């Protein structure tokens, strides 16, 4: 019997896991409101880092308050203030700028000369079908090798051309994030080509983000087509 009691005591100690505190506290009311405002502004999509900071600090402050059996001014107050600042930053980031009124055009005194239309040479595009990246990353998937090796062969045969590696994303997610991701992906493909013997001075890279979609971004298939990499011959 004694052994059983001892074993139960040991198991109880092991099972004594912590729990996350409740954030439903008077002291956290202002932080709670700031987070709610940020969420209403769409911060989960447009300012996830700031929103996460605010919510994590809310939990941490709640823990500090519970841990000290009341309101610990020095630690919890700092966390609450910092959380409110993060939530406000998230809300600000998500609020759209007000449209600026366009000035009325002045009446023209003289007729404008006809604009000179330059004939633009169409760009030759080498499509790289089958180039895939890890989710939210510029890391190339191993399955992309065949397509990239084909591009290497083309560039080795056509020694006289320079190319721009152009990467595009679909329109899902924040525009600035997609822009950054496309730049990283274009750089990643450029690095692959250089590492396979193509001279660096023949290749430039450019991320176009969500620009120039070739298919409907409202469908899964369309979005998959829009996430692409091309070589623009220059």
């Amino acid at each position: 019997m004694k052994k059983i009691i001892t074993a139960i005591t040991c198991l109880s100690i092991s099972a004594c896991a912590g729990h996350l505190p409740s954030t439903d506290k008077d002291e956290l009311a202002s932080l709670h409101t700031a987070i709610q405002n940020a969420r209403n502004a769409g911060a989960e999509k447009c300012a996830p880092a700031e929103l996460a900071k605010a919510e994590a600090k809310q939990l941490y402050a709640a823990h500090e308050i519970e841990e000290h059996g009341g309101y610990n001014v020095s630690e919890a107050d700092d966390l609450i203030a910092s959380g409110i600042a993060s939530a406000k930053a998230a809300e600000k980031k998500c609020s759209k700028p007000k449209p600026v009124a366009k000035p009325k055009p002045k009446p023209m005194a003289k007729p404008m000369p006809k604009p000179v239309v330059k004939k633009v040479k169409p760009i030759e595009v080498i499509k790289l079908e089958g180039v895939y990246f890890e989710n939210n990353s510029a890391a190339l998937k191993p399955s992309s090798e065949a397509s990239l090796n084909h591009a290497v062969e083309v560039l080795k045969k056509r020694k006289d051309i320079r190319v721009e590696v152009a990467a595009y994303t679909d329109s899902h997610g924040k525009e600035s994030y997609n822009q950054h991701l496309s730049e990283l992906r274009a750089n990643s493909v450029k690095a692959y080509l250089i590492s396979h013997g193509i001279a660096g001075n023949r290749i430039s890279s450019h991320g176009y983000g969500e620009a120039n979609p070739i298919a409907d971004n409202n469908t899964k298939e369309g979005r998959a087509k829009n996430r692409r990499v091309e070589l623009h011959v220059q």
Partner: protein
Amino acid sequence: MKKIWIICVCIAAFSSAANASIESRAEDVSKQVQGKHDYHAQMAKELSAIAEEEKGQHEVSTAGAFMEEAEKHAQMAGSK
């Protein structure tokens, strides 16, 4: 006397195991959310950092609770 000794051994074993697991779990979370920038990935990073801070202050059970929440968010991270 024997009973007290057994309980002490249990406490020591549990304590060292919990310490080690917070570190390795933080590493797993970090790997899981690497390159991800969505809300859940950010939450996972923030909560994991708090867990490590708490562990540093020997608040092992609190660290475990924060880490558990971090792992939940890490699971949900990255939908693109």
